[in-house]
């Protein structure tokens, strides 16, 4: 009897260890798999050329990923520029000013935003944001636009990124001890001074983490962006130009025209690049966090 339990204990421990190790390994396995499958194209063209060339003509054997890289950067950039101030101010309001009753109502609603399928965001984008840009915003700036633009992608993404940043920022704000706020208030600081000089400062590493999480989400988001960004393989020059982000490229084309030589390898290279960019951002955020934590406290 005793022995059986010991065996159970040992087996359970090893199984759990194996599972944990496997979970940790998945990233490497995926990166490795993508690398192996993108070898053919890497052997045919130098990596630098693939990443910096703007001509994407698979039938002619040209696989320049530059427009897609920039498309991703533009759309993500717009979404972050819009989402960060909005969601931070919203989080500040909820954590510092709103009464508990308002919080109890609003927080679940915001978390609900995160659970809405991205197709729904895409549809809303097509029905609301695209016409808004086409009929109102673009004429306002004196240009013509179909509405399917970097801006549309960025705005839809921004709405999708809100709940992530707000949620994490709220957690971070609630981890700032109430007594630190009290110390500032007791010195005669106003609420806004306290938020600005003490709470935000104390919460800065966490806020950066929240933003980076938002960026990672925006980078990888596929469906909603694909539906509104226009998907034209050209480098965007303004927010009113269409863009073709990496995830949209992969989702739109993988599985089609696979008879074109090197095509599937090119798409897998695009996936690998996407994966590496997200990993890079995560590592970057770690460094920023460590740096910021040393600076303040």
């Amino acid at each position, binding site marked *: 009897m005793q022995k059986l339990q010991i065996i159970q204990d040992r087996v359970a421990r090893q199984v759990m260890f194996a599972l944990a190790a496997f979970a940790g390994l998945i990233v490497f396995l995926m990166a490795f798999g993508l690398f192996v499958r993108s070898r053919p194209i890497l052997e045919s063209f130098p990596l630098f050329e693939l990443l910096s060339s703007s001509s994407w003509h698979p039938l002619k054997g040209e696989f320049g990923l530059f427009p897609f890289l920039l498309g991703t950067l533009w759309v993500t950039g717009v979404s972050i520029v819009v989402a960060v101030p909005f969601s931070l101010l919203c989080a500040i309001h909820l954590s510092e000013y709103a*009464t*508990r009753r308002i919080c109890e109502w609003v927080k679940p609603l915001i978390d609900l935003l995160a659970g809405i399928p991205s197709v729904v965001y895409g549809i809303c984008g097509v029905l609301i944001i695209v016409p808004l840009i086409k009929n109102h915003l673009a004429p306002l700036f004196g240009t013509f636009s179909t509405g399917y633009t970097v801006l549309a992608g960025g705005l839809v993404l921004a709405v999708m990124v809100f709940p992530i940043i707000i949620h994490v920022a709220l957690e971070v704000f609630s981890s700032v*001890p109430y007594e630190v706020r*009290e110390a500032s*208030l*007791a*010195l*005669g600081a106003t609420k806004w001074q306290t938020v600005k000089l003490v709470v935000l400062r104390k919460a800065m590493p966490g806020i950066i983490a929240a933003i980076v999480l938002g960026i990672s989400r925006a980078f990888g988001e596929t469906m909603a962006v694909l539906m509104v960004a226009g998907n034209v393989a050209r480098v965007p020059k303004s927010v009113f130009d269409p863009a073709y982000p990496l995830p949209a490229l992969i989702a739109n084309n993988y599985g089609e025209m696979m008879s074109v030589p090197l095509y599937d390898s090119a798409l897998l290279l695009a996936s690998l690049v996407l994966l590496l960019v997200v990993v890079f951002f995560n590592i970057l955020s770690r460094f920023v966090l460590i740096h910021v934590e040393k600076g303040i*406290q």
Partner: protein
Amino acid sequence: MENHTHIRVRELSVYYGREQALKNISVDIPEKRITAIIGPSGCGKTTLLKSFNRLIDSIDGVRVSGEISMNGDNIFNPKIDVTLLRKKMGLLSQRPHPLPMSIYDNVAYGPRIHGIRKKRKLDQIVEHYLKESSLWEEVRDRLHTPASGLSVGQQQRLCLARGLAVEPEIILGDEPTSALDPTASQRIEEKFLQLKARYTIVVVTHILRQAVRLADYVVFLYLGELIEHGPAEEVFKSPKKELTQGYIKGVIV
């Protein structure tokens, strides 16, 4: 020296939701004396203290009735500027909570908020109040390092310097030595005894011996009610109420 009243409390009641934390308190806090608020935990000591600088305002569902006046002005008057009121009182909390910035910036925080910008003036203020709280010698070489690197005892003296730097009239201490070791506690107590020449000091404490060592005037609260108050000597030597006698003997804890 004659005793002037600095803070006058009349029929003060504080409710948290349905619960009444303070019941009809009336007491006079004398100027330039140390007043100790004593009583078992949960009796409303901290609530009374935080009513003085209206930090209880920010608690959800709090209701206040009655009056507190400082130098004759009712502090619950909606027209008064709360930030100015709070500037008149330095607060020392149970555990030191340095602001997330350097030692220098902690002390300069209050003065900066109240409009002092000149570097030389700020330098002077920082040095002066760090000396006032006997911290200068220990930190003069690392003024620009994070305040969180100090020991807890040093942090509490830093918080004292930070509070004094806004030039308050009153120092409020909410069990200010409860997180400190005996030596550090002693330093704070010594500081209080020096400072009472210039400041009115109100200390919440659950350490009776500390009250005996420090207090000129004692306020004894029990379950939100004011049981007894008076000059320390009278209250400690010949308490009038049975509850006070019991508490002082250590029967009610």
